[in-house]
């Protein structure tokens, strides 16, 4: 009886099912790396930096609010270093840039950075294979976590890699990002082909981020959302620019290119559904900013329940 049970167990777990072992895979990381390599090599690669530069700038505002100086900052998924470029020598001496795309990593020369930079080409999903646990003062990530398959695991690795009281500051696309393009494509596919396929990544919601950060063991969380709205002449210009940014579709699974008819239909629907009066079409990028600290005994702690001396009713 036992033996037959054991055999049953062995048989049932024998064929490794990719959907049940390990974290769920959403994105094809290899395709993403190739897309970003190609994008970085394109001639017009710098002309589509506008979203990343804007977000890096807003992230720097949050970084400047933190009154602390750092020896080394780890820039996880740095791309060509949009955030690191804004670092000032007074706030951080050195930046270690990690990215899976070698071409993006080496796109810009050292002379464009004010701080010392070190580049490591490696997969952001395996952070603890690159750096030692408890070794980093600060980890930042500017617009790369939205292509990570295992977001909870990556956040845990970030927390592990930090020294106690170390800082994590991140920005990622989420929420309603590109909802205009998503709806236009879905309506076009539905009307032309009678069904829809994923062409825009599933997005992380803001409330999920707060939960994930808490679950990963960060303390003193700050999560906020911000929007960057860009106007394009038409849907084609938007899709062109997304490709040039290396932000093309990289969803795992059997993929089929969009048919020309469907694309033309979507480009007709987009301005009618979302267009502005001046004839341009908007694209929304929603960015979730997150700040978390690795717990340390020196940090301010919440008081015990029931130790409050002032009734809340008196204050309000």
């Amino acid at each position, binding site marked *: 009886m036992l033996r037959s049970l054991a055999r049953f167990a062995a048989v049932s777990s024998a064929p490794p099912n990719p959907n049940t072992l390990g974290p769920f895979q959403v994105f094809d990381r290899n395709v993403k790396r190739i897309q970003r390599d190609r994008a970085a090599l394109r001639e017009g690669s710098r002309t589509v930096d506008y979203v990343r530069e804007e977000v890096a700038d807003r992230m720097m505002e949050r970084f400047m609010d933190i009154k602390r100086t750092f020896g080394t900052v780890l820039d996880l998924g740095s791309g060509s270093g949009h955030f690191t470029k804004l670092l000032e020598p007074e706030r951080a001496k050195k930046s270690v840039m990690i990215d899976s795309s070698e071409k993006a990593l080496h796109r810009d020369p050292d002379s464009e950075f004010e701080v010392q930079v070190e580049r490591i080409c490696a997969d952001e999903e395996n952070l603890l294979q690159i750096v030692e646990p408890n070794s980093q003062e600060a980890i930042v990530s500017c617009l790369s976590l939205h292509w990570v398959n295992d977001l909870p695991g990556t956040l845990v690795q970030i927390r592990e890699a930090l020294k106690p009281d170390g800082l994590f500051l991140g920005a990622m696309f989420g929420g309603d990002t590109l909802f205009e393009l998503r709806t236009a494509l879905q309506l076009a596919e539905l*009307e032309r082909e009678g069904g829809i396929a994923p062409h825009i990544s599933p997005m992380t919601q803001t409330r999920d981020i707060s939960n994930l950060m808490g679950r990963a063991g960060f303390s003193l969380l700050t999560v906020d959302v911000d929007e960057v709205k860009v106007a394009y002449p038409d849907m084609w210009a938007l899709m062109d620019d997304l490709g040039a940014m290396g932000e093309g579709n990289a969803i795992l699974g059997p993929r089929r290119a969009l048919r020309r008819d469907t694309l033309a*239909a979507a480009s*007709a629907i987009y301005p009618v559904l979302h267009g502005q009066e001046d004839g341009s079409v908007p694209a929304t990028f929603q960015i979730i900013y997150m700040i978390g600290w690795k717990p340390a005994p020196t940090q301010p702690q919440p008081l015990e329940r029931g130790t409050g001396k002032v009734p809340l009713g008196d204050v309000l």
Partner: protein
Amino acid sequence: MSSTVTATKTPLARLALHSTATCSVQATAYGKCILATYTDVTKDVCKEEFARFSVCLREAMRRKQ
């Protein structure tokens, strides 16, 4: 419109141009049809509008090589 229609290179770029500039009237008609039913879109609900748009696109693509 003809002034905006210049010889562009890739077929996709030409499709982009024709779908937004050359055939803008038919494109808008199709878009409006979708907008009217967008909470309940089913296959071929705007078949006629798309057919007119498609004919215009095909002719434009053929004309400008």
